């Protein structure tokens, strides 16, 4: 695990090295695909993927994270933690200004924390242990925690805790503030215009607080609803950048091989998207552990990766993605073994009831995957009916627990306390959200382990707790883990330094430049 990260770092350094050989040249326009069209760009209100991708250029967080998820300076230039792990002090950059010219100060940070606690569900969870935020001087912010929180340094990237201008939002109704349509941040690019259904245009922020950056004059985010059309747009040179997930995976190998095209799978380390099948632990055949294990044995993950995902991603071994801290590869148990699946089904006393399988309504790849999974399960002797839904239907069915098996994938945010525990602890069993413990798994020992892991300080304390919990979960098979997903970013090779952190394209284009 550690080794991979080191290797990754070395590789990225090597890439940085080649880039350094060519000095960045300012100027140029980046044409990027955005899919689907975001509902808005106000990052504190909306956390959709496309919103984050575009707004990551407009807003900034206090920190950024490298490929190994170590903190990098953002709007905070330095930081420190007290011995007891309960007090964190951030020094802010002094020359940052909002796009309307007002200076960025500690008051904005305090205001943002307050605002986000109301509007941002993930920030609300992440900030749960923050007792107070204070500003001893305009460029220093102190977070005091009620008890230690292991992953605290990992919650400050732009999508998780974006900085919002106090002078615009204070005292207003956040939801209807007109500035939501013309977002103002401190980021390297400023919002210019949005032609709904066509494109969003950002322009260079000339007063950006990092000298010499950014390099690009403008960024156009093109809305192209049809996946095939997006692929054609890249081929014909209409767009230069296809962020991860914007073309179907079937097209990735072909587009990557086009002359002058480069691709990277980096930039997703922070999110570490992890896919699995929700198995309804409450009722039906899936309530039976042996049946759930049978499902896991029946799935051909290598086929899914090689054929459905065109070789992208890797089979998931358990609840922790390999880029999440304390991932334990030894916890692995399930390989493709239809015979064993059949035996387990017999043991479970499965009598051929039809099981409803909910594909994830996010495009062709997921649909194909569901079709392939259905075949896998039927080969093992499970009778499966695919249930078609759209996004709204899927969300309703999963959050109302009205399913037997459902595809999903979720971000893990680098730390088990931020992105893993929510799916397995019993306190997170609640209707109305598709992201909590939807499967309804309840195990007191797991609950306790995740509680302890979150407040333990230091890797030495946290690692054994999490390794144990991985073993328990794999054995109980509350869900059937599938693949660690990779969403390669495809660009023209003349676009440099687009992906420089573990947050990838979502971290903004502040380092990117185009060779001309």
């Amino acid at each position, binding site marked *: 695990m550690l080794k991979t990260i080191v290797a990754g770092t070395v590789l990225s350094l090597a890439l940085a090295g080649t880039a350094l050989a060519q000095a960045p040249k300012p100027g140029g326009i980046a044409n990027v695909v955005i899919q689907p069209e975001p509902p808005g760009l106000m990052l504190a209100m909306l*956390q*959709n993927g496309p919103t984050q991708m575009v707004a990551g250029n407009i807003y900034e967080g206090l920190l950024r994270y490298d490929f190994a998820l170590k903190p990098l300076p953002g709007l905070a230039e330095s930081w420190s933690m007290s011995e007891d792990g309960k007090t964190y002090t951030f020094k802010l950059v002094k020359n940052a200004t909002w796009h309307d010219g007002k200076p960025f100060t500690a008051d904005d940070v305090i205001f943002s924390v307050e605002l986000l606690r109301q509007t941002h569900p993930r920030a609300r969870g992440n900030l749960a242990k923050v007792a107070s935020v204070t500003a001893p001087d305009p460029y220093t912010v102190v977070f005091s925690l009620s008890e230690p929180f292991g992953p605290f340094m990992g919650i400050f990237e732009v999508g998780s805790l974006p900085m919002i201008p106090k002078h615009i939002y204070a005292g207003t109704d956040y939801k209807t503030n007109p500035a939501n349509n013309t977002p103002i941040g401190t980021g390297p690019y400023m919002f210019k215009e949005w032609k709904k259904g066509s494109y969003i245009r950002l322009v260079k922020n000339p007063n950006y607080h990092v000298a010499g950056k950014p390099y690009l004059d*403008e960024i156009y985010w093109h809305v192209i609803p049809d996946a095939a*059309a997006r692929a054609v747009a890249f081929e014909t040179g209409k767009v230069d950048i296809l962020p991860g997930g914007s073309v179907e995976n079937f097209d990735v190998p072909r587009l990557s091989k086009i002359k002058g095209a480069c691709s990277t799978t980096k930039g997703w380390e922070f999110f570490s998207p992890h896919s699995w099948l929700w198995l309804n632990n409450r009722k039906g055949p899936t309530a039976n552990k042996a049946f759930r294990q049978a499902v896991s044995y029946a799935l051909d993950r290598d086929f899914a990766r090689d054929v459905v995902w065109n070789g992208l991603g890797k089979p998931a071994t358990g609840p922790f993605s390999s880029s999440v801290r304390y991932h334990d590869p030894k916890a692995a148990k399930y390989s493709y073994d239809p015979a064993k699946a059949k035996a387990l089904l017999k043991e479970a006393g499965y009598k051929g009831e039809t099981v409803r399988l909910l594909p994830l309504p996010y495009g062709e790849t997921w649909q194909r995957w569901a079709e392939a999974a259905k075949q896998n399960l039927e080969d093992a002797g499970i009778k499966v009916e695919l249930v078609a839904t759209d996004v709204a239907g*899927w969300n309703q069915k999963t959050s109302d627990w009205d399913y037997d098996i459902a595809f999903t994938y979720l971000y893990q945010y680098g730390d088990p306390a931020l992105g893993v525990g929510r799916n397995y602890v019993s306190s997170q069993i609640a209707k109305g959200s598709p992201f909590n413990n939807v499967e309804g798994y309840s195990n007191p020992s797991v609950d306790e382990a995740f509680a302890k892991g979150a407040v333990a300080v230091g890797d030495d304390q946290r690692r054994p707790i999490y390794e144990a919990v991985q073993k328990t979960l794999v054995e109980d098979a509350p869900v059937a883990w599938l693949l660690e997903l990779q969403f390669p970013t495809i660009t023209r090779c003349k676009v440099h330094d687009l992906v420089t952190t573990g947050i990838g394209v979502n971290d903004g284009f502040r380092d990117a430049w185009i060779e001309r």
Partner: protein
Amino acid sequence: MAGFVARRIAKGILVLLAIVVLNFFLIRLAPGDPALVMAGEAGAGDEVFVAQLREKFALDQPLPSQLAAYLRSIVGLDLGYSVRQQMPVATLIGERLPATLLLTGTAFLVSLSLGVLLGSLAARRAGTLADTAITGMALLFYATPLFWVSLMAIILFSVRLEWLPSFGFETVGAGYTGLARAADIVRHLVLPALTLGLFFMAVYVRMTRSSMLEVSRLDFVKTARAKGLTEGVIQRRHILRNALLPVVTLAGLQAGTLVGGAVLTETVFAWPGIGRLMYEALLQRDYNLLLGVFVVSSAMVLIFNLVTDVVYRAVDPRIEVAR
């Protein structure tokens, strides 16, 4: 005529209101709601978040009062507000409508004129090779799935031949103005308008042909022949003019549906029109926006039907009496 128009408008408004009520309930029968969609897209969300969104969308109100509020605003010619897009529905539709009208209008005019031309040619040459070729081609286009032609057209003209752009309304960021911009838009327009128009052209070819054949058997055509008129004059002045009446009716019906019916073309060609807006609004359960699109496209249908009737009355002097 003014009375007729007023009567039709009054009737149209009633139909529109009925459509609003019907669709209002219809849409809400769909599983899920906009709050869930947004929560889902966010990749994170708890009950508080979803509840906040519901409040924001005014979904926490009882259904009848939501309908009453909507009807009130509709009567005031206000299509409401899309909370999801953070914009008034009218603005959103207003931004998309010109593109749709351009696309469907072009497709309509091209298909109508080509269809009538080819259809009358086929009728005149009924039974000959030219007739067989034209009707065969029309039948082929009529039977071809629109989306399939679109895909094939993109492959051929955009990818293989690189003659025409494959998607979008114009070259974004090229900074064209004036004529250059118009030319650019036209280049983008060609493929979607043609593929959309092919089907309708087929319809008009068939309609014109059969209508002309039917009219050509009427007595007054014999009268015209008995006058010693040339075949061209007979075809043009006597047959075609009368044969066009049913075509006008059909065209009126279709011009209306073209407004809302270009979902497929707009999706495949990434044309920023309201057909696509409707589909997206549906998937996002953006109720106000979806209803707004329905209201506007239905209103368009009614307007086009009215225009057709007015045209019909202008062309056919008999109507006044028949009514």
